[in-house]
């Protein structure tokens, strides 16, 4: 038998290529991921107010847009926290919030219908993206405060302007400790002569 090292090598390589190709092809079908997982991940980081301030009709469409390359700083309800989280997820620099789309507000707000002024037109009900307004035609409407995302979308359609955006009252349950002023700031504010406690000598730990 004559040895054909070149042919043998070719056969082996082609054979391997065919086998791996088949495996990869099978895997591509078998382990196919439905949808774009990155969109899901982005959507999870968005605040889900569904307010449309980003210019998209809801958080998921904006998540899709971000996945398609849109800017990540168009979400005022999420604010810098959301931008930072998105930047970390997408491994890009975190820009500041685009003022064009609105200001970040520290105060959470919910819609409140002044019920004696409501005429029961259902316009706000149609505008609410999360079905948080209860009512029927010619019946007084009311906002389910716990479901309201504070998106503001119901205020504009009201023909009698009876919807207010009220700040959510801060109760004991919501209270949390304040973060102290950052140490960098404190160091800046230091007067010369301020030394660490152990160096003071008068008061050992």
């Amino acid at each position, binding site marked *: 038998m004559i040895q054909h090292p070149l042919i043998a090598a070719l056969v082996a390589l082609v054979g391997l290529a065919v086998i791996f190709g088949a495996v990869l092809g099978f895997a591509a079908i078998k382990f196919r991921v439905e949808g774009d997982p990155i969109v899901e991940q982005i*959507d999870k980081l*968005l*605040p*889900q*107010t*569904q307010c449309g301030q980003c210019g998209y009709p*809801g*958080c*998921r469409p904006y998540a899709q847009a971000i996945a398609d390359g849109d800017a990540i700083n168009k979400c005022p309800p999420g604010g810098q926290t959301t931008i930072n989280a998105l930047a970390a997820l997408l491994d890009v620099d975190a820009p500041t919030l685009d003022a064009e789309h609105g200001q970040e507000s520290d105060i959470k707000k919910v819609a409140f219908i002044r019920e004696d002024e409501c005429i029961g037109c259902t316009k706000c009900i149609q505008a609410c*993206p*999360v*079905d*948080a307004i209860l009512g029927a035609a010619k019946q007084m409407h009311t906002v389910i405060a716990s*479901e309201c*995302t504070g998106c503001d979308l119901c205020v504009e359609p009201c023909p009698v302007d009876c919807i207010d955006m009220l700040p959510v009252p*801060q*109760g*004991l349950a*919501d*209270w*949390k*400790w*304040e*973060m*102290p002023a*950052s*140490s*960098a700031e*404190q*160091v800046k*504010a*230091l007067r010369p002569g*301020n030394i*660490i*406690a*152990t*160096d003071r000598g008068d008061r050992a*730990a």
Partner: protein
Amino acid sequence: MRKIWDLVGGVHPPENKHQSVQQPIGRLPLPEKLVIPLNQHIGAPPKLVVNIGDEVLKGQVLAEPNGMVSVGVHAPTSGVISDISDYPIPHPSGMSARCITLIPDNYDRWIEHAGLDDFRACSPAKLLELIREAGIAGLGGAGFPAAVKLSARKPVSTLIINATECEPYITADDMLIRERAEDIVEGIRILAYILGDPEEVLIGIEDNKPEAYEALQPYLADTNIELVEFPTRYPSGGEKQLIQILTGKEVPSGGMPADIGIVCQNIGTTYAIQRAIRHGEPLISRVTTVTGRACTLNRNYQTLIGTPISHLLKHNGYDHHHCARLIMGGPMMGFTLTDMDVPVIKTTNCILAPSKEELPTPPPAQACIRCGMCAEACPASLLPQQLFWYAQSQNYERLEAHNLFDCIECGACSYVCPSNIPLVQYYRAAKGEIRKQAQEKIKSDRARARFEFQQARKAKEEAEKSAKREARKKAAAEARAKSGDPAATTDSQSDIVQAAMARAAEKQASPEAQKAKLERGVARAENHLQTVEQRLLAAEQDGNEQQVEQARAAVADARLRLDDALAKLQALETEGASTENKVMERLQASPNEALQKKIASLRERIAITEQKIAEADDEALETALQNGLDKQIGKLKEAEKQLAETPAGDAVLTPAGTTDAAAAAIAKAQARAAAMGNLSEEDKLRESIMSLEGRIEKAQAKLDEARASESEHVDALQTGLNKLQQKLLDNREKYFALTGQTIGSEEQPQDAASVAIARAQARAVELANMSEQDKLREAVNSLKGRLEKSRQKLRQAEAEGSEHVEALRTASEKLEAKLAAAEQQLAEYNA
């Protein structure tokens, strides 16, 4: 002797406990009012069961537990509920919460209550119920409902009673043990019984409380309760730390002691449970240490829940000038109070009023030097400096990865930090932020679900709607096919077109009507202008500037309107003229040119129609348009044929004919225009005649009436009637001249009577117009005529031999007499 494990980390700050153990537990006089917060524990706020104005007895329930993890509150003394509203409560936030205000009546009358002599006769469940009803929450610090903690689902192998009291200054538990050791031991027995008599029952106590140790010892002689003493080190009193010291077991991260078969209870809680079971007393008071150099007297008190702190301090010589800050709890884990009037609650073990030397304001924090002292001090084996790092950069994921939630916030790290960094505050803030984010996450997940549900619902509704639309369309098409009327759609289309045309025609009134309308408009505008000008004049005379201004504006406006109306009228007139011109033009043009024009216009229309067909999306409309197009093409072909047949020079050859035709057309048009003008004149006359007739009738009726009633207005009425009749006659004459026709009552009379009446009326009218002389002459003439007639009749009668001869003769004689009288009158008049 039991083996004792070492506390991991920890610190040993100055104890400062001796000040407050010099005197026994005291009692204070009742304060003026008690403020009892509803929620003094971890869990759901209880449900209020009293109203403002209610009189309550000591121990009476004020609020019932609301749910599993909840405890009630009871009246600490007898008195009246004066208020139920928000008051500041002891909380680091300094916020207000719902409180019941009780004004004591100073009788301190107990509600009827009884304890159990033998708790072993009751089931543990029943005892738990009693504990729950007594409103007992953990007195150690957190305030977790005791009944919940005791109803462990897993079998309990070890019961630990926490008598450590490791925080400086606090001596409440120490004093309690010293004075009430027997009751406490009974309480421990009750707890052991409830938990199914665990193998081990331990009391953990630090070695800095020898008196308490000694006090307990005699009561433990014949029990399985083991009193374990261990070295004093902060924070050995932490639940997890104590378990580790006593058993060597570690509570898993995020877990509970119950997970490893251990239940821990504070010594104060144990005593409260004993009071509840043995005496039936709810938790209405507790031992509270009042200490610190800002108070002259440092002591423990049996304090009623709800006692304002200011009341406690007042009895201890508190001097707020010396006080650095008022602290509830110990110096390590307590919090600063902003309000002196906040009440003592179930978890208030100490009120600390340190002087400024005792607890100076912490110096400003400096940079972390990574010395690692905090990590050595941490009893939870965490890495405080790393946590600090991540808390500063708000890297919450890393914080959780570094087990931030295992931090017990003991403050040992802050205590040892050489840079004075308030580490615990960072951790607390970070924890709060993480909790908040978790809550927001839950909320946003819900919002997303709701949003997606709404989207799905809307899509479904839309699909249903379009399906319905489709079905309707199909049904309509089927119905049409069934009725076998393919032209139905075109029919309806043409109906619509016709209706539209009718509407347009209606709108476009006849030219004369338009003209009349415009003329009226002009007249109205003129009138208006006059009035406003007058007003302006008047205003100017008055000197009222504002009115003048207004009037001027009105005048300007009126002028504009008049101009407008005139312009419109002119436009209409010129339009009429231009139509005439067009007709002339067309008639004067050669047929050749006319045909060419026609062809051009037809072509244009065909092009438009074709474009419309291309744009039309409805089938029916398309067919209709196609039909129109076919017709147009037919017309075009015809016109082209005509053009081909008509010789080019024809127009020149027959100019006379066309001009003739033109002249005829013009004449006709003019005649019609004239007729139109006349017509309106005629109409006017006819209308006025009609109205005059009506008025005459009415006047006649009135006159008759007046005559019948012999009114004085008869003459006036008669004159009016006469005038009307004259007018009518004039109009009739005019009308006749205009049309050659008679009108109205000139119709052929039906009978002799009406003829006579008509004649008489005419005569009357004539008479009315005559002068007196004429009247007389006329009368004479008529009498002569009548005499003649009557004589004739008489002769006829005599010839015939009629029986009326006599009567006729008398009549003629009478007439003769009348005639004579009339002639005489006339003669007199003439003279």
